[in-house]
């Protein structure tokens, strides 16, 4: 008979995502313009990071690269330790669905759909299929998480700006992503509503979700675990 002994384990939290030496050059009709230059960036589970910077500093471009909307010209991108720098588009779409939740300054809600249908949009994207009842349950849970379950059947035109942004956040949360990418989510809201939205976003980090918040607002940035400032395509 053999006896097994429990080995003591050391918990090392691997980064959710890690960007090394990321460079992005905009090649338009005129001279090529470097937007990001050798950027290094890391987010751990449950960590919230605010990215500050003036307009044109490269904040949104960085968020696009993290969210796999676009590809870097140079550098490496690791997600859960896997190199996804040169991921084909189909797999990038699958990762966007499984790993990321997006919140934008303009809420991008479809006017012809109800709040619940707008949230369900993230579930009906060709990445797997769940039954209508299960979808409905997931949608209602996401809406409850942001405190607007009672508005599930309302069309966006009947909702206030704050409510619309919370619907957008519910849409980002419905697939239970590992990272939330928020690009100036409070830009179109008044201070009070903006604070409420930031609170909702911060709540997600308590469940282990990473949060990257691009903002101009220093008050909102200060609520994050880490604040970084981009200037001329580099972190200060």
């Amino acid at each position: 008979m053999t006896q097994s002994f429990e080995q003591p384990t050391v918990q090392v939290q691997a980064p959710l995502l890690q960007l090394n030496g990321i460079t992005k050059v905009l090649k338009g009709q005129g001279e090529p313009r470097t937007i990001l230059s050798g950027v290094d960036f890391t987010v751990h589970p449950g960590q919230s990071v605010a990215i500050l910077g003036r307009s044109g500093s490269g904040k949104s471009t960085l968020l696009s690269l993290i969210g796999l909307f676009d590809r870097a010209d140079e550098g490496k991108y690791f997600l859960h330790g896997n190199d996804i720098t040169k991921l084909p588009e189909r797999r990038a779409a699958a990762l966007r669905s499984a790993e990321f939740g997006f919140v934008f300054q303009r809420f991008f809600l479809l006017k012809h759909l109800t709040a619940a249908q707008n949230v369900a949009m993230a579930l009906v994207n060709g990445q797997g299929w769940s039954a209508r009842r299960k979808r409905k349950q997931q949608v209602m849970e996401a809406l409850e998480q942001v405190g607007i379950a009672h508005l599930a059947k309302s069309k966006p035109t009947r909702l206030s700006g704050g409510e619309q942004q919370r619907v957008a956040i519910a849409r980002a949360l419905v697939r239970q992503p590992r990272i939330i990418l928020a690009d100036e989510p409070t830009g179109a809201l008044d201070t009070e509503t903006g604070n409420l939205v930031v609170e909702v976003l911060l709540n997600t980090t308590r469940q282990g979700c990473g949060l990257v918040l691009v903002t101009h607002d220093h008050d909102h940035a200060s609520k994050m675990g880490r604040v970084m400032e981009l200037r001329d395509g580099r972190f200060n």
Partner: protein
Amino acid sequence: MLSGKFRSALVIGGQGIRARKLRTFLSMVSLFLGVLAIVAVQAGSEIAERAMLTDVELQSGKDGTITGYVPGEKGAPGIVESTLKGRTDAVAMIGSRAIIGEPGVRPINEGGMPFEYAGRGGDYSGPMVYCDANGTCTEQKKEERKPDGQAIEVNMVALTGDIRPFKPFRPVSGSWLDFGTAPSLAPRIVLNEEAAKGLKQYRVPGEMMIDGATHHVSPQIIGVVQDGSMQPRVYMRLDELRTWMPAAASTTEVDRFRGGGTQLELYLQPGTDDLQQLLKAKLVGAGLSKDQMHFQAVNSKERMESELKIMRLIFLGMAFLVLLIGVAGILNVGLATVGERVEEFALRRAVGMSRMLLAGIVLAETLLTGLLTAALAIGAGAAGLQVALMMFGSRFPSLQGTAFPWEAGVAGVIAGLVAGVLGGLIPAIRAARIPIATVMRA
């Protein structure tokens, strides 16, 4: 089970159509005429072909029937009659000349011509010379011209059985010959429309003189049929004719020279090769040459299809042009819609939809629109046909009982799908190429 991608495409495509009802309607309007044109051309050509085929069947026989032509010489009518007696898979038509009306007068339509041309034939007054096979020619004594009178000349056709399984005569009034009853002394005759027209137009006495018959006959007219013939004809049972003409008259050389005499037409069902061989053997045994007998299968459909093919292609080409205009319409609306839905498409890609599926959704919307339009066009075509049949069906007997051809329905569905693909392809490619980063940042 449907895949997640396919289900997603259907759900989102359906939402897109419901959200843009007016645009979908406008796309359908532009496409409707094109698909309807295709349906109408296809249905028209199918119906025309069937109508023509029905008319040809009346004269030549149904497709696949074996028809035989045998000269009425050397006892051939008797041989054919005895061989086919009691058979239902083969019928012989023995044709002769008959005059209905006053005896000893010149018929109104001498030569059995259609009544429209009665009296227009003129009168050839020169000598008639007959030359036999050896080249010996003799002048024929010209028959004395009979006085004009109340009589009509018809082509008399005696039948060994029911001919309608081979030639689908259409009933006009009364009934058809009943071959199951005992022969009547007063032969029952069925007229074709031209003969009925002659009897109605010229009130002639009900007495019939048949070439080769021993006595004049008082027939009973029991019905009128449409047989596709321009000439006046009467049909009767051969066994009833036999009472008055015990032996079938043979055609003489002089009859043949005059274009008259007994003619034999045979109609056999496919697969009766043994019967055909038996008949040929008996006729050859009686002294007829094989070259004098002609048997062939009726193949009207194939011949007509090749004749109609060019016409159909021309009309389909024109209909396709109309369809292209519809495609241009759906393409125009599709491109405008993609321009309007840039944010929606970028957002869908941002939440994980692949380019391919996004293109599939746009294509699914135009395909659904195309199919919906096709269904409406097919419905309109079928309804239009019913209305046209109600209004004009009585004028065109060959169209009676015409149903909407399934081929037109298939053509409509294909046209709708093709239009959907052609009209949706470019918008689908554009939708798939929308850059997420640029749109979501704007």
